[in-house]
């Protein structure tokens, strides 16, 4: 069990601070509240894809066109996207921050979810540097990811190790609906 809370608004503030233009994503259960919160952020365009393997190629095209995209996919989707990661991120030297949902992560190493147990070995094998973010207290690692991607012209992962908290708006809507 991960202690601490990760609020979408704080991650979005980091994205805005770094001039992110597009958020290319296939939502998953852990990031659902982030998706909802991003729909209210006018400076960032959501680009939903049908399969995770599309995310890196779309981001590469956006970057070539002068935009500043990030992607957000689950760890299981990252494995599906392996060839795109190889050819259109590592292969072209794409400075891309990839938010990866760390499904199954519990910090104890005894998770039965293979999507979690192979994530960090996968990233090491593909020579992708990464940072783990488990709560708002870890968000100072996000600027490091942007800096490293820009410095190395390589993709850098931010593994989101907890489920995003509900936004204030979502909580308010629920409370309003219950009345």
């Amino acid at each position, binding site marked *: 069990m991960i202690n601490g809370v990760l609020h979408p608004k704080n991650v979005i503030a980091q994205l805005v601070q770094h001039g992110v233009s597009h958020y290319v994503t296939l939502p998953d259960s852990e990031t659902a509240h982030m998706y909802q919160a991003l729909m209210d952020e006018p400076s960032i365009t959501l680009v939903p894809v049908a*399969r995770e393997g599309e995310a890196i190629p779309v981001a590469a095209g956006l970057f070539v*066109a002068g935009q500043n995209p990030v992607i957000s996919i689950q760890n299981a989707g990252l494995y599906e996207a392996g*060839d795109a990661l190889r050819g259109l991120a590592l292969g072209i030297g794409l400075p891309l921050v990839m938010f990866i949902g760390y499904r199954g992560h519990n910090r104890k190493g005894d998770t039965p979810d293979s999507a979690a147990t192979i994530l960090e070995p996968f990233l090491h094998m593909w020579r992708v540097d990464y940072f783990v973010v488990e709560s708002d207290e870890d968000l100072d690692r996000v600027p490091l990811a942007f800096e490293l991607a820009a410095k190395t012209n390589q993709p850098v992962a931010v593994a989101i190790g907890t489920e995003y908290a509900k936004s204030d708006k979502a909580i308010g809507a629920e409370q309003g609906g219950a009345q």
Partner: protein
Amino acid sequence: MITYTDACRVINDSRDEAVVVTTMTQTKYWYQISEHPDLDIGIANAMSKASSVALGVALGKPERSVICLDADGSLLMNFGSLATIAGMAPENLYHFVFNNGIYSVTGGQAVPAPGVEYAKAAEACGYASVYRFDDVESLDSSLSEILSSPGPVLIEIMVKGQPQAEGIDQTWESNAKMPLQLRTLRKRLTGADDWGPGGPYL
């Protein structure tokens, strides 16, 4: 049936200043005809992803037309991109699908379900308009108007399948070429020469 050379010639005649994203066999023929190589990307190291790269460029530069020269075998590997493109609805994206029913590069094996009609699939996904051509005269007479209409548009071109034993620009050399092409295009589109070396080829 239309030949690759004729199709590429007709597209080039109507291209204007569009970015052209190609892949596989189309790349070979397009490079022989293109008059704006600084606006071309040959996707050589990420099989099937031309349509997704083209979508990204189209979303990032909405004021410039983007043409994708895709094919049936490639699109079958990235079929969900039809829905993704339809969902984002870029008005500047023109998605050509060269349909020959086979995998040319690997020796001419039939693709699964060679009878798939890609124009109908794109229409069902929600493309703004779709076309299917099997003679070059009709393609030639229609293309200028099609490329002036709002996208996303899918143009299916029926081409004669011919296995290519050699000559396809699909080697490690083309893999090495792509990163430089992408940097050239970014510089052309943004005016900034700010994408430094990175990866195994640069």
